[in-house]
């Protein structure tokens, strides 16, 4: 929204500089995005009179004119009479009129904001010297009108500055609308001026005509059937007023001065009737709409029978912009009889549009449900100045004074007279609440020490009815403040207008109880640090992915929550696991020259297969990890991923075991090749923690992975549970030396390391001496039928040194049990 400072000044004094004003408004009302110095554009533009005008010989449209600029502009060639010659091609140029003259060396205002503004000169056109130019409205950057030059309606003397005549030495404030969503009054200049007065500490006086809730409409000068107005459902519209005017002189124009005010705040002047509706909307925030009365009667079957109702299923309406839309029961419709003629608050219909032959005009002044209009706005994509204001919730009281002023202004600008009574349907009349609060409450909420009198004056400056008695404030907001309902609303007014920056800062009192980061956050930090130490890079990837990514790893898109209004198909589905997102990053990084790297992410996944929790989808934490090397390696990548996972587990104080993955239907397992992947299990709690492995061939192909690629995906919540079960594992150090023995088992190719360890461990657990078993070597001869697994047994007694015979006996017991249970040979 654009606010003209000169327009504000018509309603309140402003005695601070523009910079100070902008700072003050920013701190106490609303953010200003930019301040534009409008006057700069017009500094050289002069009012001039065309004293002579003659056709230029040899041209079919150019005229040679002599301009009287009062002799003001220096550096220009003048004739004996002191006049300046300008060639002009506009059809409406003629002797006697006043025009805006852009002298040589001045900048064409239309180009003032361009990178290279156009500077006028003196040059010959068809042999005739032309000094500068006579400007059109478009060249003056006022509004988009270029059919002829702008004719001025002033009695200012030639040579007067154009900007002085039309008050264009102005500043425009570009306002951030969002912060005023709750302030319908500030969407009118008068409401904005009221705030500007108050934040300067000044009282404001609303113009009498706007404060008048039962206004005088002047004398009725004709007798046309007054429209009947019926609001079918009071939820849709609190109030609807309509009045008929007749006899507008179509040739009359809105005063140029008003046109320039409309233009500078972004509204294009159209004709006097439309300009009045726009002018009053900009002034008060109340939109008005004009219908052709006779067309409406015709559509309505012979009577001006206006209804406000819901749209009907299958009902169609052609709008002013020639679009035909299908209405829904959520739209509010203006109907004549049974026929829809307008989309309430949004746009009128083509069937009742005002045109040159219009004789009788209906002016509508109404208010509609802002919730319905917002939905209509979204559904039909209508973003007009009017609907922007309606969706802030204009108060119903406002319709009367504004329509009364519209009648007055249209009469003044077009000569039209009121020919009907004013129809008024007002089912939504509400009393303004009287709010009681205490000064103590205000100060306690804000942390201030304002006196009750200061609070009362602040509120009175913005025309609240406020009285103070001891500590108590009794407040009633003026009718235009439909946003004031409760004590907190009043507290906000007092705090804001006196500036929040004036509040003394304090810290809340609290006791000395320590607050801990949650265990889960600490776990995640620990895992993050471990993986970073292991050389991996943490990434964050989007929570939404393409359906093809799901399909590539064999996950079913039907199990993912789907975004209905996604930006692109790439961001359509919630992910079921993190691995696909990580795999998606591998190829581009390899191509960018990174040969060996690991990526990990901690984030959440969601699946429709999980039950809702308290009405919302379950959120599952995951830790995803992928490791690749562009170059093939002798060893399988699985073992390096496992090495890193074991390292992380060790830093967390856990011991993990790995069980063949086998067939798994979990979404988590889908990318992993079951023959080369494992389930990860916490040894002490038996808690399953996730999956580790190499990827399926189809997955590797789909993501263009190098041959050497493996990874894991774990459930941090399961890790947290496992860690909760962990008992302190410390045993006192022994003062006696340990004894170590290596033992090598030759086994069949398909015997696993774990089988040997399990049997070994079982035997060792029967011996009452502390012992460990560690891997030494895994050797497989070229034929691949057998393999040799060497482990190291280590024995430590707490109370004595073990003898060689004892150790030999322990080893023999292990050897015999393993050879018996697993069909192993000791070598």
């Amino acid at each position, binding site marked *: 929204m654009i606010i003209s400072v000169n327009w504000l000044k018509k309603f309140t004094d402003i005695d601070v500089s523009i910079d100070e004003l902008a700072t003050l408004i920013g701190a106490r009302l609303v953010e200003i995005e930019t301040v534009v110095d409008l006057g700069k554009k017009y500094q050289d533009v002069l009012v001039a009179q065309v004293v002579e005008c003659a056709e230029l010989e040899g041209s079919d449209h150019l005229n040679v004119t002599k301009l009287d600029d009062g002799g003001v502009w220096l550096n220009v060639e003048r004739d004996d009479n002191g006049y300046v010659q300008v060639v002009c091609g506009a059809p409406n140029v003629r002797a006697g009129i006043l025009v805006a003259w852009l002298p040589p060396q001045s900048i064409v205002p239309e180009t003032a904001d361009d990178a290279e503004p156009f500077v006028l000169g003196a040059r010959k056109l068809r042999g005739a010297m032309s000094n500068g130019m006579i400007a059109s409205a478009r060249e003056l950057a006022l509004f988009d009108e270029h059919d002829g030059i702008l004719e001025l309606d002033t009695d200012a003397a030639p040579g007067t500055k154009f900007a002085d005549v039309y008050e264009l030495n102005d500043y425009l404030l570009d306002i951030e609308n969002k*912060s005023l969503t709750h302030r319908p009054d500030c969407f009118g200049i008068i409401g904005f001026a009221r705030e500007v007065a108050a934040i300067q500490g000044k009282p404001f006086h609303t113009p009498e005509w706007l404060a008048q809730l039962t206004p005088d409409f002047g004398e009725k000068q004709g007798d046309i059937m007054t429209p009947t107005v019926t609001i079918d459902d009071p939820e849709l519209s609190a109030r609807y007023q309509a009045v008929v005017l007749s006899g507008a002189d179509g040739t009359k124009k809105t005063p140029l001065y008003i046109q320039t005010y409309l233009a500078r705040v972004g509204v294009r002047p159209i004709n006097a009737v439309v300009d009045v509706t726009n002018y009053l909307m900009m002034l008060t925030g109340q939109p008005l709409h004009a219908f052709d009365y006779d067309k409406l009667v015709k559509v309505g079957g012979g009577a001006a029978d206006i209804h406000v109702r819901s749209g009907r299923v299958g009902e169609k309406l052609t709008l002013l912009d020639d679009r035909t839309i299908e209405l829904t029961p959520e739209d509010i419709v203006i109907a004549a009889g049974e026929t829809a003629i307008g989309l309430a608050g949004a746009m009128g219909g083509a069937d009742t549009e005002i045109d040159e032959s219009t004789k009788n005009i209906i002016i509508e002044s109404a208010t509609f449900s802002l919730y319905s209009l917002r939905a209509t706005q979204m559904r039909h994509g209508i973003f007009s100045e009017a609907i922007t204001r309606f969706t802030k919730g204009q108060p119903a009281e406002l319709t009367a004074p504004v329509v009364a002023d519209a009648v007055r202004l249209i009469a003044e600008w077009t000569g039209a007279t009121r020919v009907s009574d004013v129809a008024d349907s007002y089912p939504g009349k509400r009393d303004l609440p009287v709010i009681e609060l205490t000064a103590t409450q205000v100060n306690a909420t804000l942390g201030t020490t304002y006196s009750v009198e200061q609070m009362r004056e602040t509120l009175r400056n913005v025309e609240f009815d406020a009285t103070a008695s001891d500590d108590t404030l009794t407040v009633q907001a003026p009718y235009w403040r439909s946003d004031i309902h409760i004590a907190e609303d009043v507290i906000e007014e007092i705090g804001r207008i006196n500036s*929040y920056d004036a509040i003394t800062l304090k810290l809340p009192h609290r006791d000395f109880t320590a607050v801990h980061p949650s265990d889960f956050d600490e776990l995640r930090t620990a895992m993050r640090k471990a993986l970073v130490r292991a050389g991996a890079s943490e990434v964050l990837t989007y929570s939404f992915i393409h359906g093809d990514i799901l399909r590539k790893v064999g996950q079913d898109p039907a199990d993912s929550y789907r975004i209905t209004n996604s930006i692109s198909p790439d961001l359509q589905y919630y992910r079921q696991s993190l691995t696909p997102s990580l795999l998606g990053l591998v190829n581009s990084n390899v191509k960018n020259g990174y040969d060996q790297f690991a990526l990990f992410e901690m984030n959440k996944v969601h699946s429709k297969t999980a039950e809702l929790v308290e009405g919302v989808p379950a959120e599952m934490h995951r830790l995803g990890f992928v490791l690749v090397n562009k170059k093939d390696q002798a060893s399988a990548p*699985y073992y390096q991923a496992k090495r890193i996972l074991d390292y992380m587990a060790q830093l967390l104080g856990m011991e993990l075991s790995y069980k063949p993955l086998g067939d798994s239907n979990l979404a988590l397992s889908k990318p992993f090749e079951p023959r080369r992947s494992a389930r990860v299990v916490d040894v002490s709690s038996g808690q399953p923690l996730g999956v580790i492995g190499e990827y*399926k061939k189809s997955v590797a192909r789909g993501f263009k992975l190098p041959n050497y690629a493996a990874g894991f995906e774990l459930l941090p919540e399961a890790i947290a549970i496992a860690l909760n079960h962990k008992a302190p594992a410390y045993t006192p150090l022994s003062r006696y030396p340990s004894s170590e023995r290596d033992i090598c088992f030759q086994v069949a190719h398909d015997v696993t390391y774990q089988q040997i360890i399990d049997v070994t461990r079982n035997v060792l657990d029967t011996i009452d001496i502390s012992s460990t078993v560690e891997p030494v070597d895994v050797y497989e001869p070229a034929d691949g039928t057998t393999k040799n697994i060497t482990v190291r047994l280590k024995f430590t007694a707490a109370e004595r040194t073990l003898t060689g015979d004892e150790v030999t006996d322990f080893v023999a017991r292990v050897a015999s049990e393993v050879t018996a249970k697993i069909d192993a040979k000791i070598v």
Partner: protein
Amino acid sequence: MTNIEDLRQTLFARVSATNEPREILKAAELKQLYTVLPTLDPSERGAYGKAVNELKVTLEAAIVARENELEDATIEPLDVTAPWDVNSALPALLPTEQGTQHPLTRELENVIDIFTRMGFEAIESRQIDDDEHMFGALNFPANHPARDGYDTFRTEEGFIPPAHTSTMQNRILKAGKAKLEAGGHIAAVSYGRVFRNEDVDATHEHTFYQCEGVYVSETATLGEMLGTLQGFFETYYGQKLKIKTQPGYFPFVEPGLEFAIEKPAALGGKPGDWLEMLGCGMIHPNVLRSADIDPEKYRGFAWGGGIERLVMLKYGIEDLRHFESGKLAFLRKFA
């Protein structure tokens, strides 16, 4: 149509039995189906053509599945329990200097650490929520124009990827109610990922991080809120800072403010340079009420702001898109 269904079963059986499944596409019976088409009544052709097409699509999928199965059958199983591969040794970790923490999680840890030390519990925000938590419990009526600013995504079920971490506020208030009524206060921050339907460029992302704070007690004031926020930013930047406010409108606070700090010297700031940091205000009585907290007895304040802003200013990061790009060229700068 029945013969198409029969044929489907026959062909599928053949696909699962053969080692060259792609050959099945050349089956004579398939070609036969097309020759039937012109002989049919025109009214039946559409449905017939569709059924044939469907058969081809499902058959193709079955062939790909069978091909994968055949390919996978050649895969050598691993001893997943072994400490390392055969004829090999314990694999190395990656070079530790390659390890990098993401700058966003690093900064989030820092922010959470400061708030924790200030007495605020930290709770991670949700990534999918319902309308009630995202809007309803925060005093946004259905269809309220204040919702426009949030550009929310929706799932088919009507769930919302939250557009602000305030989606946790009602839960935080409910969880803290008992402590509050026992004479204590509620002090918590919620942090995490939020989503807005926005086109992506150097300064806009549809996915970003926020941190929101909530404080409720019998005596909370706006002055305490401003003091708390100033306290946080002074700790974060390690220097004294000036603050500035301007009125803002958020339905869940009243009064509502926007909060700015004077740009710290560490970031090359000069007096008069302001950084808009967050939105904040006193919690609206309706928001307290929706958590069953009596607004006559208790007051609170809340704030929320983005994390990326802090990180970008701190490191001089020029493009918001780097954060979720997963590019090592970017990540390796944060070793």
